[in-house]
């Protein structure tokens, strides 16, 4: 109980300041609250707002309303997010966008990478399908596994999406890649935490990435195409034609190209990623 409180208090402080600003009438003295040891539950409030998980909507009300306004805390820093202005996200829906890869067979495995997805889970699943594990349903009984997989992710999950694709390329080998970028429209519904009556709908555009990995050849003319195991070559060709200043390119085998060899040994971020055996 108390330990929990102690730990979080710093964070709460932070929360207060943020929360105070837009609702001057509703100032909340969270530290006092905490000293009383009343709610370790506030921890979850903080998280709730920050990460906007839709959980526990009621908590915010409970916590903030019974508290009396107190003399203001130090000057509030500019509020950062909607989430800290007394609103919380109720739901988030991604608008359906057409598949970025027209002409793709319908049965292709699509991995939707989210911010909280664990790479090992994603990869465990995807690798099993690609390598044609028995017992996994799917078109292929031939044992070869699926031919193609698409990784998509948006916003903060973009990095993870790329990492997944990179890991898979490394493990499966000779995969053709096609990468597409675009904006994705996300609709968010925010609800005021005081009354619970007011609602706001926000349309946001977040960058998203889709990476198609295929065992079969893809159209090399398509922008965003990357042939198998050519990490450096792709830059050389695009580059030669492109720039008048082909500058120094003495590092033929160097930076981006040097790693394929050592790859297996040092799976930096790939560390966590073993497919389950």
């Amino acid at each position, binding site marked *: 109980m108390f330990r929990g409180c102690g730990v979080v208090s710093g964070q709460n402080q932070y929360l207060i300041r943020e929360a105070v600003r837009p609702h001057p009438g509703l100032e909340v003295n969270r530290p006092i609250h905490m000293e009383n040891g009343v709610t370790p539950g506030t921890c979850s409030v903080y998280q709730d707002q920050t990460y906007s998980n839709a959980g526990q909507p009621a908590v915010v009300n409970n916590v903030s309303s019974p508290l009396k306004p107190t003399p203001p805390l130090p000057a509030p820093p500019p509020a950062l997010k909607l989430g800290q202005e007394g609103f919380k996200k109720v739901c988030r829906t991604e608008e359906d966008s057409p598949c970025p890869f027209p002409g793709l067979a319908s049965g292709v495995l699509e991995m939707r990478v989210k911010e909280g997805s664990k*790479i*090992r889970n994603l990869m465990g699943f995807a690798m099993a399908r690609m390598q044609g594990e028995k017992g996994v349903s799917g078109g292929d009984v031939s044992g070869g596994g699926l031919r193609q997989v698409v990784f998509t992710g948006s*916003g*903060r999950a*973009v*990095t*993870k999406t*790329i*990492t997944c*694709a*990179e890991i898979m390329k*490394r493990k499966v080998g000779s995969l053709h*890649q096609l*990468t*597409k*970028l*675009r*904006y994705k429209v996300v609709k968010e519904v925010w609800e005021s935490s005081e009354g619970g009556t007011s609602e706001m709908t926000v349309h946001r555009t977040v*960058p998203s*990435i889709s*990476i198609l990995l295929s065992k079969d050849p893809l159209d090399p003319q398509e*922008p*965003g*195409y*990357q042939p198998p195991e050519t*990490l450096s070559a*792709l*830059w050389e060709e*695009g*580059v030669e*034609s*492109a*720039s*008048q*200043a*082909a*500058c*120094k*390119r*003495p*590092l033929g085998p*160097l*930076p*981006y190209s*040097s*790693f394929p060899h*050592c*790859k297996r*040994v*040092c*799976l*930096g*971020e*790939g*560390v*966590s990623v*073993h497919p389950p055996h």
Partner: protein
Amino acid sequence: MTEPRSPGMSSIQTGPVHTDSTPPAVEMDPVEYTLRKRLPRKLPKRRNDVYVNMKTDFRAQLARCQKLLEGGGHREICVHGLGLAINRAINIALQLQASSQGALQLAANTSTVELVDDLEPEDPDEAGEPMTRTRNNSAIHIKVFYPDPQGP
């Protein structure tokens, strides 16, 4: 730049490689180490290469790209982003594309970049060996170009 997410995983790993910040308790506890991250190696810098980082103001970086494409007379530029900066690189590329009213096209490629960390023993008396450790991070390279066939 780095991936703060993975440190907890160290117990499952395959090799001596870990991600940043939390020294994996497993291998090296007796001596404390300071972790220094070396700068990533860079590709050669042509005039139309833009390496995006998280320190420079976003608008400044966007403006720089715009200038290259419009004023600089480049038919294409390459926007590179590593780790956390991937998002920003994508954002810049998409913004460029949007503001060009469809004149610009994007071609993205991804890669893995090997990064080196130095581990320096904190207490010289305890005679810990300085070590290095490598890890990988993802990167993106986006070619932003005018698609007409008349190449230079």
